[in-house]
């Protein structure tokens, strides 16, 4: 590979000046036109039949233009399992589920009218624990499960609350346990958390009299929004335009399609008006995806030589009231269920179970934080039982080139050992720090792995327009929600086109103008969109050479381009500026050679397969990204307060397209992980979410943030653009188990759940006594 000039450098963010000056446009920042404001009426029971909805008084309220209920939304929506309606029809399945929507000329009128809607429910027995929900006599939440449309890689059980049962059968589990000298069994629990991006969910919709629908949304995935709206509302795609401005944080909650469709029937009644909805913080916490809670049981067999022979992993996920997206998290956790370790015999059963809690859905890590919590805690227990070094257990069993995952996919491009060793070195692994002032110190380590969880044909595309002066517009459908995608993608384009990155313009997506991107999720954009852009740039560059060859009457293979001039490597007189080539090139005779140069590139994975329905064997991973976290803590056993003294994180990025932004992701994911490890838990009481604001749902602040040391490892991804792979979610995965392992080592206790709140740690110390 030629020496890279732009990829691998820390150029400033493309969105930098806009974002530090307040000019960056988020969707609520623009005046759009005559406005109607929408507000939702929400269910006051977690599970119940809707006996009646009386909207009479609300409709008469001054300023109110429309009040809609479930009957106005005949079709269901969903990404994988089509089980959700925009408004509840006939029954409600979680507390706070929207049952009606009001549109009014002011937000105040809309809010007042919502209070005037009267809804009568007949409350039904609820399911709040998926383990109970799995039982045959549990109250049924979706009576129509058997009739729902579903992508045929998921396996719901009709007549039950099980929305998906994913299985791994690899090797011979019994033989594996027979070979083992030690068998460890533990139960684990991971509670729900919330993404809480500082920007809540927002959408605005306009219906023009000619039947064109325009949607502005905080959506991470405008193309999916367009596709799902087209299907559920029966509008052809060319009549739907979806625009995602800058997004004030996504972390998964703005994936799929969420609130946009709710507004469309209103907009259709008032052509030309903009109908807008802005979620309050409370609505955002309670009404959008939560991270699914996970109840799990691990049984691990280990030989004395420290090799793990077998793993039996049972996962029961709290899918919440609708699992349109959640079924795939359950699947991803299933096919990745050995974590970063090579285990020959595996039996996994991963169940997605409907409950009457808030809707489960994607969160940074897509099941990996929850699933690998069990793996990484279990390894610690194993190490202690065998009196071995936890790092060594990880190094011995960790995946290496040629290892196979739970689904039997062979991994090639990784250096997991190095990921572990750098963080271990950094925190002084093996050096026991003495306890001081009645406080206990401990170190912990955890590894991590994740591949994008996406359909095997999730595609991507890019267009590059070369301007007359040789500058370029890169057009893509990926969204910018902070991850730095615009910058990294520009760098890939600039590198390939041999032009400086500041000669590239790139914008957030607008489906009328930017080409298809499946979703900005799964840490996939650098790889998928990056590959598309690289191909588009190569296409454009090829055209530049072809045109120049014609113009200069020189064979293409003799030409070179330095960003300004295309010249013959044999004859320095044969030279044309990029301007001459790009600006409707003509010969000296005046005869035209070529019009504007437009490069195109697209991508679809060719290395992924379906999985066997019985064994789960196959290739679900586009690429696998490994990393590790190392932590030193100090614990006050009296108060239970955990202080993180050292925090080191590593990621095998393949190639860091922009090392500074890669590090920023590493830090950001690590802080989110720390926040969940120590503070975050959504509390429910029979489906009612109790901590729905920042007063009682606490996330890490700057003074909770210790200094972090980060390490980028670069084992090139063979098919990634310039060797890069995605890293956005991964840094979060190892943090909770690493912190817990450190606390466990400090105190000599076991934690099977988190967050490690002061009270929980104190309780563990007390129970040990």
């Amino acid at each position, binding site marked *: 590979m030629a020496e890279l000039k732009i990829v691998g450098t820390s150029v400033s963010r493309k969105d930098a000046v806009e974002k530090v000056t307040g000019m960056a446009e988020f969707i609520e920042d623009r005046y759009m036109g005559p406005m109607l404001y929408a507000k939702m009426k929400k269910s006051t029971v977690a599970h119940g039949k809707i006996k009646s909805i009386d909207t009479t008084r609300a409709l008469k309220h001054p300023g109110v233009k429309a009040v809609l209920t479930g009957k106005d939304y005949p079709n269901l929506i969903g990404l994988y399992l089509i089980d959700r309606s925009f408004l509840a029809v006939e029954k409600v399945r979680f507390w706070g589920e929207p049952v009606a929507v009001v549109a009014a000329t002011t937000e105040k009128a809309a809010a007042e009218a919502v209070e005037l809607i009267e809804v009568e429910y007949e409350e039904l027995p609820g399911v709040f624990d998926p383990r109970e929900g799995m039982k045959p006599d549990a109250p049924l939440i979706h009576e129509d499960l058997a009739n729902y449309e579903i992508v045929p890689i998921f396996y719901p059980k009709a007549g039950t609350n099980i929305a998906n049962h994913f299985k791994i059968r690899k090797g011979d589990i019994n033989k594996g346990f027979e070979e083992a000298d030690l068998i460890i069994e533990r139960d684990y629990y991971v509670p729900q958390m919330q993404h809480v991006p500082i920007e809540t969910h927002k959408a605005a919709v306009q219906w023009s009299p000619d039947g064109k629908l325009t949607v502005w949304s905080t959506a991470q995935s405008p193309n999916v929004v367009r596709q799902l709206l087209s299907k559920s509302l029966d509008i052809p795609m060319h009549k739907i335009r979806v625009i995602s401005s800058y997004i004030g944080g996504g972390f998964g909650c703005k994936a799929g399609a969420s609130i946009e469709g709710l507004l469309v029937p209103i907009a259709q009644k008032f052509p030309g008006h903009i109908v807008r909805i802005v979620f309050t913080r409370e609505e955002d916490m309670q009404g959008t995806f939560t991270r699914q809670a996970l109840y799990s049981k691990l049984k691990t067999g280990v030989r004395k030589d420290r090799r793990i022979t077998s793993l039996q992993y049972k996962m029961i996920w709290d899918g919440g009231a609708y699992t349109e997206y959640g079924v795939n998290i359950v699947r991803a956790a299933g096919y990745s269920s050995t974590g970063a370790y090579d285990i020959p015999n595996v039996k996994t059963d991963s169940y997605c179970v409907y409950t009457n809690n808030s809707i489960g859905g994607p969160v940074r890590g897509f099941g990996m934080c929850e699933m690998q919590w069990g793996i990484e805690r279990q390894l610690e227990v194993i190490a202690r039982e065998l009196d071995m070094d936890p790092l060594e257990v990880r190094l011995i069993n960790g995946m290496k080139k040629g290892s196979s995952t739970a689904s039997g996919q062979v991994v090639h491009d990784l250096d997991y050992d190095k990921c572990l060793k750098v963080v271990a070195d950094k925190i002084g692994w093996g050096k026991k720090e003495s306890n001081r002032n009645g406080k206990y110190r401990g170190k912990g380590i955890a590894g991590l792995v994740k591949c994008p969880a996406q359909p095997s044909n999730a595609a991507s595309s890019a267009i590059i327009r070369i301007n007359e002066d040789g500058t370029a517009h890169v057009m893509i459908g990926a969204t910018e929600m902070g991850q730095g995608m615009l910058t990294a993608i520009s760098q890939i384009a600039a590198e390939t086109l041999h032009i400086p990155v500041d000669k590239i313009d790139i914008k957030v997506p607008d489906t009328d103008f930017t080409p298809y991107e499946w979703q900005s999720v799964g840490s996939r954009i650098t790889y998928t969109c990056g590959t598309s852009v690289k191909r588009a740039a190569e296409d454009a560059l090829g055209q530049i050479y072809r045109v120049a060859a014609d113009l200069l009457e020189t064979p293409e293979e003799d030409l070179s381009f330095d960003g300004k001039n295309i010249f013959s490597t044999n004859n320095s007189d044969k030279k044309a500026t990029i301007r001459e080539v790009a600006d409707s090139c003509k010969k000296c005779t005046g005869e035209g050679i070529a019009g504007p140069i437009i490069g195109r590139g697209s991508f679809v994975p060719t290395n992924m397969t379906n999985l066997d329905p019985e064994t789960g064997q196959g290739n679900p991973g586009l690429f696998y990204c490994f990393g590790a976290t190392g932590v030193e803590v100090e614990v006050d056993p009296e108060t239970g307060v955990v202080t993180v003294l050292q925090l080191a994180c590593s990621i095998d990025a393949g190639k860091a397209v922009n090392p500074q932004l890669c590090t920023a992701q590493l830090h950001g994911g690590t802080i989110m992980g720390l926040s969940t490890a120590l503070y975050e838990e959504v509390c429910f009481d029979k489906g009612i979410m109790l901590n729905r604001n920042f007063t009682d749902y606490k996330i890490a602040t700057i003074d909770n943030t210790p200094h972090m040391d980060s390490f980028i490892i670069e084992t090139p991804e063979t098919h990634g653009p310039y060797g890069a792979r995605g890293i956005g979610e991964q840094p979060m995965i190892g943090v909770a188990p690493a912190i817990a392992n450190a606390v466990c080592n400090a105190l000599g206790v076991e934690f099977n759940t988190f967050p490690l709140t*002061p009270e929980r740690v104190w309780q563990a110390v007390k129970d040990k006594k």
Partner: protein
Amino acid sequence: MLSYDYIKCADLNLAFQELEEGEQVYPLAGGTDLIVGMRGGKFAAKTLIDIKDVPELNVLKEDDQGITIGAAITLNEVTGFTPVRENVPILAEGCHSVGSYSIRNRATIAGNICNASPAADTAAPLYALDAVINIAGSGGNRSIPIKEFFIGPGKTALNKGELVQSVLIRKPYPKGKGIYLKASRTGSVDLATVGVAVQRWGDQVKIAIGAVAATPVRAFSVEKAVNEAGEKRWADAARLVHEDISPITDLRGSREYRYHMVEVLVRRGLEQTMGV
């Protein structure tokens, strides 16, 4: 958006009149609790009287009486006031524990106590300092000790037509160290799971605790043991605090954890103020 009247008031008597005659009239100073409470439906205000510019409420002074903190003085102003820092640093600690820096640029000590949350971070220090609340109203002025000001969660001794004019920390100031120890879920901007104020007064101690009862409470059992019986084993003294408190379980902590934490923080407070 809520509907109510707003009256900017520069004259205390006008404020009394509004408070006396109006229905659901609330004085507005920093607004950091009031506006949150109105949004959440806790307060149904029909009129807000903005009292920030009333001269009598903008007093921040030290004189022969002690330190007077007017109702419109922000927490950051209290924290930055040299006589407070030098003589009653425990109060600065309590004020500093409320919210974030930007909140403390608006929030006032009077607002913190008028909200009457048992967890109010300024309350326990004020209890331990035997602060006096100067109340003004159309019917005249009166002064009551802080412990009579708190009546229950959200309830104060203010009568209709009255407002807090100032908080007074009387001279003589306590001799000896005072400390406010707060347990919370994150250790950052957070409400107190429990808050313990321990103030040495020469060879005596006063201890006050927040978030463990319907109002902040004094730990009289502990004080008695230390001050009267001469208990020097701080752990033993601290154990007595269980008799002074009756915490509940909520999102911030269980009853058991609160009992435990109060004991730990009282002991630590005694160690740090009365000597190990």
